[in-house]
Structures are given as C-alpha cells and as structure tokens.
C-alpha cells in the first residue's frame, strides 16, 4: 500500500496537536482509509485519552522498540470506525527510550499495512520532536493566531526546512475566532500566512465542542457531528486525500461576502 507518514507538530505546547491528530485520524478512517496514529510524546501520552482508548492499552511504543511485544500486539484498534489503530506512547519512560532510527524502523514496518500513519509530535524542538520528524513524509504544523504560537511555528518550519531531505510542510491554524479577527484583536489567517509563508491546509474555528469531545474521549469527527471544528477537520482530511475543498474565510477584514454586503447596506443606509 505504501502509507504516507504525516507528522503533526507545533513547537509550542497546547495549540491542539493531539486534538488535530485524533480528529484527522478518525476523519481519514471515515473516508475509508486505513490509519495508524502514533503518539510520540513518550512520558506525557495523551492521544489515547483524547481518542478514548486509554483503557485498552496493553503494550506501547517502547515495548515494541525494546522487543517485549510484536508491533501488531501494541496496536489498539478503535472499534468505532472501520480501520483505525493507535500505537500509544509509553507513560513511564522518557523520550530518550527511543531514537529517530527506531521511529523510522517502526514506521517502515507499518508502511505496507495502511494508507496513513499520523504521528503526534511532542511540543518542543528536541529529542521527541526529532523522533517524530525522522520518519515523516510530510509535516503539518499546527499553530494558533497568537504571537507566541506563530513564533514557535516559524522556528519549527525553519528546522524542518533545514532537514537534508525535503519534507513538504503545510499549516493548520487552530482556534481562530472570527469575531476577534473582525475586531482586529486576533491575527487573521492572512496575517499568519504573511509571516509564515507556508501553504495553508486548513483553519479550525474555536469551538467549545472540542472540550466536550475530549471530556468524553470521542473525537468530533466520529459520527458525522455538526459544528465548525468538526467540519473543518473533515475538510482537512479530504484535502489530505487530494480533494479540492475551498478554505472558508474567517473574519477577514476585507473581501468577505457578508462583510461586503454589510458595507453596502451601511453605505446606502447612510
């Protein structure tokens, strides 16, 4: 099959890497793809709890690398969708328990078994990030429209670009608030793109349902749920599979249809 290995990273913590990994994995599986997601955040595993699979873990990534089990035994199958598996991180070890070479070996064993391997990278730019980056065919950078997150994204983009092998990078802007952007109190999508000059893969609006879904361990993309974030994640999944899905504008100051219409009315009313 020859899976695509996509690493999801950000530099800064708390921008939504794990949420994005879980939701994209489920959305891709719902599109009929066979997906394995790997939690590369050794010692701080979270993908399992966001996906709602935390009670079914027997073995983890480090067990596989150190030969205590077969890779197949460590994969936790998500029974709510056709073909989705989680390879959990070890919780009681630290990042140095595995090396970038281990990650390359591990993914190469999986490449012929599935369509997509999504790697949830830890925050930071050190060992854990290096592990997550090593096997990547593509990198998705998650950022928020916020100065600190954009700065860290810039750093990560620089590091990925400095890799000897060319790894395509795309950007997902998470937690965008249309009303704040409209008021000029949040960097707009175009502002972030001006600064980062990286192809945009999608924009996820801020959505309280994200918290609800992680409370329940049930990603928003699971059962065709409605809502801005769920729909944005599904759109991104379709773009990943090559579909041309336009990216909706979010609170941009110029050009929005409703806004232009609003301006027209205001002008004629005055």
């Amino acid at each position, binding site marked *: 099959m020859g899976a695509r290995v996509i690493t999801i990273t950000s530099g800064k913590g708390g921008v939504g890497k794990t949420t994005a990994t879980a939701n994209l994995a489920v959305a891709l599986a719902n599109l009929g793809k066979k997906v394995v997601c790997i939690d590369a955040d050794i010692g701080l595993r979270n993908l399992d709890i966001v996906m709602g699979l935390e009670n079914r873990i027997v073995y983890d990534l480090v067990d596989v690398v150190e030969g205590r089990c077969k890779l197949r035994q460590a994969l936790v199958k998500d029974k709510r969708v056709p073909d989705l598996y989680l390879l959990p991180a070890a919780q009681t070890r630290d990042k140095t328990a595995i090396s970038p070479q281990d990650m390359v070996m591990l993914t190469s064993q999986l490449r012929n078994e599935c369509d997509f391997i999504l790697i949830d990278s830890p925050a930071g730019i050190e060992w854990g990030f290096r592990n997550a980056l090593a096997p990547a065919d593509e990198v998705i950078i998650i950022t928020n429209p*916020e*100065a600190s997150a*954009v*700065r860290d994204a*810039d*750093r990560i*983009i*620089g590091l990925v*670009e400095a890799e000897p092998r060319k790894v395509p990078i795309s950007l997902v802007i998470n937690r965008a608030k249309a009303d704040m*952007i409209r*008021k*000029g*109190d*949040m*960097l*707009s999508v175009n*502002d972030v793109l*001006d*600064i*980062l*000059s*990286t192809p945009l893969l999608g924009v996820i609006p801020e959505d309280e349902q994200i918290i609800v879904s992680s409370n329940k361990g049930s990603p928003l993309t699971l059962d065709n749920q409605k809502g801005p974030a769920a729909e944005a994640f599904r759109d991104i999944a379709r773009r990943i599979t090559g579909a041309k899905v336009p990216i909706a504008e979010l609170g941009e100051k110029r050009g929005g249809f409703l806004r232009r219409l609003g301006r027209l009315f205001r002008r004629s009313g005055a």
Partner: protein
Amino acid sequence: MTSLFDRFKGRREPTSAEIAKERLKLVLVSDRSDLSPEKLQELQTELIQVIKRYIHIDEMEVQIKFEQRDRKNYLVADIPLQRDRSYALATDDDTPPSETPPAPSQTPVTEEQPEDETMGIDAE
C-alpha cells in the same frame, strides 16, 4: 521598522492584531538571522563607512533592514545617493567625499540639495 505604526499615526491606534504582527515580524528577524538589533546597527555604521569611501551618500537616510519574501530573508539596504553637481568637477582629485564621519546633522542640506537616487543592495 515604524512603517505600520507611522501609517496609522494620526489616523487611529493600531489594533492589537496589528501590533502583534509588527512585533512578530521584528522578533522573527533576529530569530531567523541570529543578529541582534545592536549588531544590525553596527553593520549599518560599518557599511556606511565603506560606501562613503566611494560615493556620496545621504547618510541620514540609509536604511538597512531585513525583509521576508516567501520564506527567504533578505538583507536590504536603501542607500540614497547625493547628487552633488560640484562633485563631477572634482573627481580627478582622488579624495573620498569625507574622511571623517561627519556628525549626522552636518551632512545633507547646506550646498548640495540631495536629489534622491536610491541604490538598493539586495543580499540574501
């Protein structure tokens, strides 16, 4: 450096998003280049000294800054030349325009009316 703020000066206060964008652009210059604002100032001073040995420039108007196009950074120098009509006559005497760095305030105005021609140096 002041472009955005200047543009809005007198018109309205910049929004917080505009402030964020401007601050980010500035901080990313040093993040990406490993060059602090002080070092950049030093570079500017030295560059002016070198160029002055060859050509009349309007020192006060020299601007050296980083610019980003796509994901490449460029060091861009805007160096306005002084068109000095008497200079054309004086060329056979090989001395540079001024040996000592003049105090900034003395440089332009007096005799030569600077008509700006801009010499741009782009270097990655």
